[in-house]
């Protein structure tokens, strides 16, 4: 039996197809666009699977549309991250609209978790808005941050306030590299304190779109007591976890447990 795991997020829809034994057959990423369920539908229609499990903020809509099972991003990231790194003790996922930190039990289950508030502080969205304020692309902003010696303290984590703060700093003629670094530092600080609140220990798996940002990875590594692992396909960890949960369900159904 083949399964399809879908992570329907606000920025992208990620898909992972797994074979019986858990081997990845295929993976794909699409832009969410204005209608994430529609973006997800193209993957569902591609076929080649018997079961669909959805996660992400569009999971309920998907459940209604295709009658699939839905699991939360928390469970999906825990499953996905511990499949890639069996030694994982914690997971950090900084996505487009939210940040999750998860502490794992010894056998890879969720022990505790925390999510950011409804606002976009500290998420991929926040970085995007700030890059625009600086006149950078996301890649340029990460590179600028890495090139800076010190970071300029940013006082606000509210996207709207921070944006005007950044604009003000640029107008004052501050070094854009230092502003970039300051922005990354403020997210890292906030993320590290969430990790501390759930008593996360290493090895920590850093997943989600923002894990592709080398400046962010460097700062989390510097501030976290313990090893930080970044999966190659950081963005599809949730979709992988969703697919794995389907396989686990099939296994329990088969044993009748």
């Amino acid at each position, binding site marked *: 039996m083949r399964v399809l795991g879908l992570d329907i997020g606000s920025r992208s829809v990620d898909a992972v197809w797994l074979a019986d034994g858990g081997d990845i057959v295929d993976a794909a990423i699409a832009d969410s666009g204005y209608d994430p369920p529609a973006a997800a539908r193209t993957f569902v229609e591609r076929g080649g699977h018997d079961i669909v499990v959805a996660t992400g903020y569009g999971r309920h809509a998907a459940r209604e549309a295709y009658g699939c099972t839905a699991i*939360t991003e928390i469970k999906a990231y825990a499953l996905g991250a511990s499949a890639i790194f069996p030694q994982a003790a914690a997971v950090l996922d900084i996505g487009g609209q939210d940040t999750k930190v998860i502490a794992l039990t010894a056998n890879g*289950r*969720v022990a505790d*978790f925390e*999510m950011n*508030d409804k606002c976009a502080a500290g998420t991929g969205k926040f970085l995007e808005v700030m890059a625009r304020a600086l006149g950078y692309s996301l890649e340029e902003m990460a590179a600028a941050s890495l090139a800076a010696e010190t970071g300029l303290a940013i006082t606000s984590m509210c996207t709207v306030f921070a944006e005007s703060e950044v604009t003000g700093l640029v107008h004052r003629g501050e070094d854009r590299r230092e502003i970039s670094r300051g922005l990354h530092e403020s997210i890292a600080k906030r993320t590290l304190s969430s990790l501390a609140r759930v008593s996360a220990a290493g090895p920590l798996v850093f997943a989600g779109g923002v894990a592709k940002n080398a400046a962010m990875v460097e700062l989390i590594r510097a501030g976290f007591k313990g090893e930080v692992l970044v999966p190659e396909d950081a963005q599809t960890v949730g979709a992988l976890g969703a697919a794995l949960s389907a396989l686990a369900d099939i296994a329990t159904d088969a044993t009748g447990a």
Partner: protein
Amino acid sequence: MSEEAVVDYHPMWAELGLDLPTHDALLGAVGQMYGAAFLKQENRPEGMSYLDFVVSEVHGLRIKELHDFRAQGGKVVGTFCLYVPEEMIRAAGAWSVGLCAGAEFGYDEVEKIMPRNTCALIKSFMGFKLTRVCPYIEESDLVVGETTCDGKKKAYELLGELHNVYVLELPQMKRPEDVAFYREELGELQGKVEELTGNAITAESLRTAIKEVNDKRRALQRIAATRAHSPAPISGKDALLATQVAFYDDVPRYTQMMNALADELEQRVADGVGVAPAGAKRILITGTPMALPNWKLHDIIEKSGGIVVGEEMCTGSRYYDALVPEDGETVEEMLEAISAKYMDINCACFTPNQGRIDDILRMAREVNADGIIDYALNFCTPYQMEAFSVDKAAKDAGVPLLKIDTDYSAEDMGQLSTRVEAFLEMI
């Protein structure tokens, strides 16, 4: 709920001075919320039809009863807190109604006279008053406030400019001298309600009132006890509603109907009939009280596949767990007993408050909870602060706990349901 011959209550509401269009909007919204949260549940106990009816007539028939009672010279007293003993109000011949409001309404008006960052409960009752949409407060000849948290204390000053308000002072600790102080305050309250109704509280009337209110609590205790069984015979939402209605409804009638519901639930337990699948995760909720029509968290939990099996809150066990001893001979003795029983309620406004933590852990065991969800309204300092001690105690006892801070708005529903679902997956 759309019966053929619906009575038009608009003339009565107009007489009360309600703002009719705004009031229609509120009732419409509550009706919609009720339908979505309650009526679609599967396998509901039949006894719930009484509560469905009460809610459908919450501003209708029940208000008419209050209206008629007052037309014959009866007095109605509105209250906001458990520490105002309804036994005493009844013993003076008045009716007591709970006023706590559980919906976001009239905040624009409220924010003209109060800080934005005030808890939803206070904003709601002020909003209801300022926009003239609550018939209960308009039917209240007297509102009895109390000095629990700072927000309420100051809010009663503002409410006092718009309504007849009397404030009962509460101590903040529970030492013997504090209990004695509260007993004295009850003496003041006695004078106040006697003056209002023109009736003296007698040993006879107080004994009857104690018995009646205890009977109501006994019925609620029976309902609560059935929820400890698996599968739970009633949803948490329905059980919460039963407690919420306890503050408004006619006491003997309500008691009778709740005993009938309890009979049915006990039968369900005997037959192994439940409302949620056997494997549904069992949740105990603790924290800030949930005033009618605040059903948000229960709704999220139960729509996520969990089942709420207990509420350690004022709209829950704190209200019905303890009874007033019924063997007092004199008014004096009975008031003594009342003050002792009420000072035993574990509200987060008191310090120290280990009793509440003990209650939570005991309840978690008694109802066989798989996890606890600690609920606090944003800006409710007492419960938000205490959440940390509750969390620690639960973790030490090996019970998973999720802390939720929210308000009455629908804004954070998506985020809340992700957190609740993840908690249910985790435990």
